[in-house]
């Protein structure tokens, strides 16, 4: 009897967990492409409170994507994307830079993330 009760509880817990995960929508994925010395797109707009996955994809060599105020510090190499899921809670316009030195035009490799 006791054993049956434990099994029932476990099944109920697993079902509840599956139900919970099924109800939570997958975060929107925003892909950012990087190549020497530019990002594409140059601007990304996010919504405050929205869970979103930023995916950095490099098409040539190692690059970074750094937005300190949003806690974004991604690395990507050719064939090895990097990603992070964030829920921005502050509206604003945030400059984003490549922080993996990639050559003489590296200083101009930047984009903007807008949270509205």
């Amino acid at each position: 009897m006791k054993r049956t009760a434990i099994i029932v509880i476990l099944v109920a817990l697993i079902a509840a967990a599956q139900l919970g995960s099924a109800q939570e929508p997958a975060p929107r994925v925003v892909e950012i492409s990087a190549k020497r010395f530019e990002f594409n797109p140059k601007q990304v707009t996010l919504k405050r409170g929205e869970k979103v996955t930023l995916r950095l994809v490099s098409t040539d060599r190692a690059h970074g994507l750094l937005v300190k105020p949003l806690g974004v510090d991604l690395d990507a190499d050719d064939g090895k994307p990097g990603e992070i899921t964030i829920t921005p809670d502050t509206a604003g316009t945030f400059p984003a830079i490549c922080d993996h030195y990639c050559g003489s035009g590296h200083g101009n490799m930047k984009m903007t993330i807008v949270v509205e």
Partner: protein
Amino acid sequence: MKKEFDRRAFMRVSAMSIGAGALLQFSPLATTARGSTMSRLFRRQNGEGTSPFSIVQLSDTHVGFQGPPDPLGTKAFERAVDVVNALDQQPDLILFTGDLTHDSDDPAEHAKRFAAFRSISGRLRVKKRMHVPGEHDAALDGGVLFRENFGETHYSFDHRGVHFVALDNVSHGKPIVGAEQLAWLKQDLARFPKTAPIVVFTHRPLFDLKPEWEWFTSDGDTVMNVLAPYESVTVLYGHIHRPHHTLIGNAQHHAARSLIFAFPDPSTREKKPLPFNSDQPFKNLGIRTISGSSATQAFAAGINDVELSIREISGSEGVMQMLREGESL
């Protein structure tokens, strides 16, 4: 606690018409109790005691750079060498804080730039010259060319009672020191008492000066936590192409001017090199001296910043005189 230095209180701008970089004078105060302790320690460990001395910091020579912000190429660097050589009292050593060369996608061309740097720096009368890499030297090849020319990218040494630590925060490609070097730093410092005067020289700032301009080191806080127990820490760095002075806890952080072109004040919106001015070709490229002593620190510090200048010739005419045959602005 972080605060900007009061420049008037902290610095005395010399009227001397001398060159570029930074002349630092260290007075370990062998006459004080602390100085005596340090003197005994270093004599026992290294066979040398403490005594006053001076050093020069030169930074961001970017040999090989071609572009509108500095059409004069290596002229400021060459002028700096002449000026340092002309100092009545020659410094004990010279610290180069990175971006010795400007990178090239062609490794052979980059190697030539390292050779050109060594050719110019080799004219310095001071033979004890220590280097750390900047991202333009070491980020694309992980420091291979730098090591071929100057040895390891991080190391330490003692000089007359001061412990010098060279830190590499560029050759991983990212602005980071890294776990391996941090472990080495802890081990390196372990033999010193908390009163030991320590000078760290590196390329990028070890604090968040302006991350969106890449003026930071991602694990700089961790580095400074390792250094925090030490009472007398001075960090000398380059990268930002302008003087900057900050006190965080017990540590002084000093950025040196460059020898190629200047960046604007970090309070400005855009990071664009300040435009070349042919009437004042070395404007914003200059010398800093650190001198003096403090009763409360084992060595220390009054810093003088002086712009590099052309002594005998001036204005556009002076610039034209500096150009070699066939060169033009």
